[in-house]
């Protein structure tokens, strides 16, 4: 089978230096997106474990798989949670969730945790949509704009390009700076047409890197217009998979004249993290399961 260049790394992690049994409140957030799914486990509001994997053809199975992988080697089971919140495109199909909360609320809440209370604008660049979210110092959403109709400016669009050019998706960012001069952006908005455009640019003798540069800058501009409409406020941060693509992030920063905050956590887990934090807040209000 041919190499699938769009495939990004799926992995899990847990904090080996902590014993979750000593915690009081154990909550989980499960973000079943259209392209990727994450399960995050928090102990007393601190990140304890997570998994990040591809969403399958069925949401409940994807939720179970992500959860089982996050639980791996922790000795924890589903019964140990005080509260589980589902979020993302498949949030109503998380069979073991106590509640479903929209991914917009969860990204703002998770972004607040990941980037600190100074963050006011969160750009969530997901697999099949893109959201520009404004929030307050507590991570509460004050306004947002979303594109979920068009693949331009989404992770899926970037995956299509990685496959077309035969470049691993994780290398796209670095390679896109391997150019002597920044080329003009790809002119087609539509990913389908941009693909044809890229094919003709390659025929004209453009290098792989130059085409990637042109596409990254087109994508940066596409999401810039969304941010401009919602009105960007400092501080600014990017969540979702594209947050890991320096080719888009740096070009967007340049167009915005702003530097995005960086997080020590994987930008893809922001939604699930926010969901787990909502779970903790609900437990503190007396909701949830008794252990």
């Amino acid at each position, binding site marked *: 089978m041919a190499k699938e260049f769009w495939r990004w790394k799926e992995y899990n992690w847990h904090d080996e230096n902590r014993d979750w049994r000593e915690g009081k409140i154990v909550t989980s957030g499960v973000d079943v997106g259209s392209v990727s799914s994450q399960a995050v486990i928090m102990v007393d509001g601190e990140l304890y474990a997570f998994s990040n994997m591809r969403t399958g*053809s069925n949401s409940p199975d994807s939720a179970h798989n992500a959860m089982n992988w996050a639980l791996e080697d922790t000795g924890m089971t589903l019964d140990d949670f005080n509260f589980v919140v589902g979020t993302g495109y498949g949030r109503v199909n998380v069979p073991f969730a106590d509640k479903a909360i929209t991914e917009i609320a969860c990204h703002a809440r998770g972004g607040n945790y990941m980037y600190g209370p100074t963050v006011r604008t969160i750009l969530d660049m997901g697999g099949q949509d893109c959201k520009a979210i404004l929030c307050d110092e507590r991570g509460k959403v004050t306004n947002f704009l979303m594109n979920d109709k*068009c*693949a331009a400016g989404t992770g*899926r669009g970037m995956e299509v390009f990685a496959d077309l050019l035969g470049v691993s998706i994780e290398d796209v960012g670095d390679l896109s700076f391997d150019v002597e001069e920044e080329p003009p952006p790809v002119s087609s*908005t539509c*990913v389908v047409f941009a693909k044809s455009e890229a094919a003709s640019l390659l*025929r004209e003798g453009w290098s792989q890197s130059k085409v990637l540069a042109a596409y990254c800058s087109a994508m940066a501009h596409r999401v810039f217009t969304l941010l401009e409409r919602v009105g960007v406020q400092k501080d600014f941060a990017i969540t979702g998979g594209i947050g890991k693509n320096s080719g888009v992030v740096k070009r967007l920063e340049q167009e915005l004249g702003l530097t995005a905050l960086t997080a020590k956590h994987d930008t893809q887990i922001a939604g699930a993290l926010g969901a787990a934090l909502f779970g903790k807040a609900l437990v503190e209000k007396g909701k949830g399961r008794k252990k």
Partner: protein
Amino acid sequence: MITAGVDVGAKTVKIVVLRDREVVATAKDLSGFDQAKVASELLAQALEKANVTQGDLAGICSTGAGRKIVSEATHSVTEVSAGAKGSLFINPDVRTVIDVGAEEGRAIRCTEKGKVEDFAVNEKCAAGSGAFTESMARALEVDVAELGKLSLGSDASVPMNAQCAVFAESEVVSLLHAETPKQDISKAIHDAIASRITSMARRIGLNKEVLVIGGVALNVGFIRSLNEAIEMDVIVADDPEFVNALGAALIAAERAN
């Protein structure tokens, strides 16, 4: 008087040679990488078929996305002008023209005298063009020519959530995984593109008769879904992909007078 119309589309080049308003030759080929060369060679072929030389022509009019690259052209017109002209020549009762090509969709409203009153174009998004059905056919692993026929066997209405061709491709794969019959998926695909085209056409108003031109008009599944979406029966032009080239040739003749 002999004239030629050259339509350089995103995917194919079409040529019509007219003698005294009568079609004497047509030719069609893929646009390929070098559209200018393809157009020149195809023009030579069409003229040979018509048994005339370039010197016999009173004018050559180009149209289509690549109309500027035709070096032989004496005139050049937009697809809107060419489409309206060609459509009214075919059927003088036409008031609305729906033109769906490989990478563009167009709706044109014209008067009984053939004047263009209003038009709408989508050239930004693959969802309302032939590129949509082509990528869906790939996802379904059927030939694009088969896709339309397949959908005629279905009366189901499976909703497609995605508008975007990229997202719709994933949705088709999910529907296949869920073991939805291929004919029902095919119907959903044509309903989706018909609904996109209809909402564009409604912006300029739909008046009878409605003529459908462009390569996608050959797709019987699309025409059926379009009839249902606009709630009237459209007319499909004979050789629908040649109508713009025909219109261009007619315009060349008018301008030569």
